């Protein structure tokens, strides 16, 4: 019988970090579903990305390897490129439609 999850959460263990990372990911997911402003949706996507990097670093630390940490380097690089391209798309969209609210970006509907 394993101890309950709350009892396992501490700085010395992997479960605590994975729990924090899960909560962060869920909050980002919630924001992506809830918000209407494209920019804030994008920030919530970044939150999800950060949550995954936290999980990677924690797993890599507690398994005694370096691969996860090296992978985080690549994730950070890709994230920077992704933010640049995404924000350029948002600016182009704003020039065309003069709004960033997802509800009003419905030209392809019907």
């Amino acid at each position, binding site marked *: 019988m394993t101890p309950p999850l709350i009892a396992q959460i501490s700085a010395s263990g992997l479960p605590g970090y994975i729990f924090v990372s899960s909560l962060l990911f869920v909050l980002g997911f919630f924001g992506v579903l*809830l918000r209407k402003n494209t920019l804030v949706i994008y920030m919530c996507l970044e939150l999800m990305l950060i949550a995954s990097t936290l999980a990677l670093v924690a797993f890599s630390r507690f398994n005694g390897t370096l691969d996860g940490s090296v992978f985080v380097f690549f994730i950070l690089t890709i994230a920077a490129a992704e933010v*640049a391209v995404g924000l350029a798309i948002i600016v182009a969209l704003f020039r065309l439609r003069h709004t960033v609210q997802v509800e009003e970006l419905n030209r392809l509907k019907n």
Partner: protein
Amino acid sequence: MANLLFYALSLLTISCAALVVWTKNAVNAAMFLLVTLAGVAGLFVLLDAALLAFVLLLVYAGAVVALFLFIIMLLDTRHEALKPFRPMTIAASTIGAALLLLGLVTMLRRAQFPAPVPDAIAGSSLKPYAEQLFTTYLLPVQIVGFLLLAAMLGVIVLSRKHEPREETP
């Protein structure tokens, strides 16, 4: 001491992430994102990855959040009324997020974690990372460099002003 720090940083990170989602103003959301990133960087330090914490702060706080703030300033979306969320949206997104949380927590409760905690490999030293990046991961590093070039060209093309094409006689 480490335990207390872990709880404080986790609380800071999670509460600021919640505020990113809840605050109505995009600038405030960007600022809370910054604090969230600082909290995650602190957790990285607790995980003996000080170098990664530094890189995270440099790349995210220095570049990404600044870019977000620039774009918010540039677009000037103040005139768009801050409409309250529709109840349907709130219900649907809450159910979706709760299902995801349920799945993750169930996974956590059934998982078996490695029991003995190994010693930290890298710490704040750059050498192990450099050895990995320039031997095992040499090809991915090249590919990522090419991807950055492609992203830069893509942004230049995207942000160019599109003038109406002249009619050829």
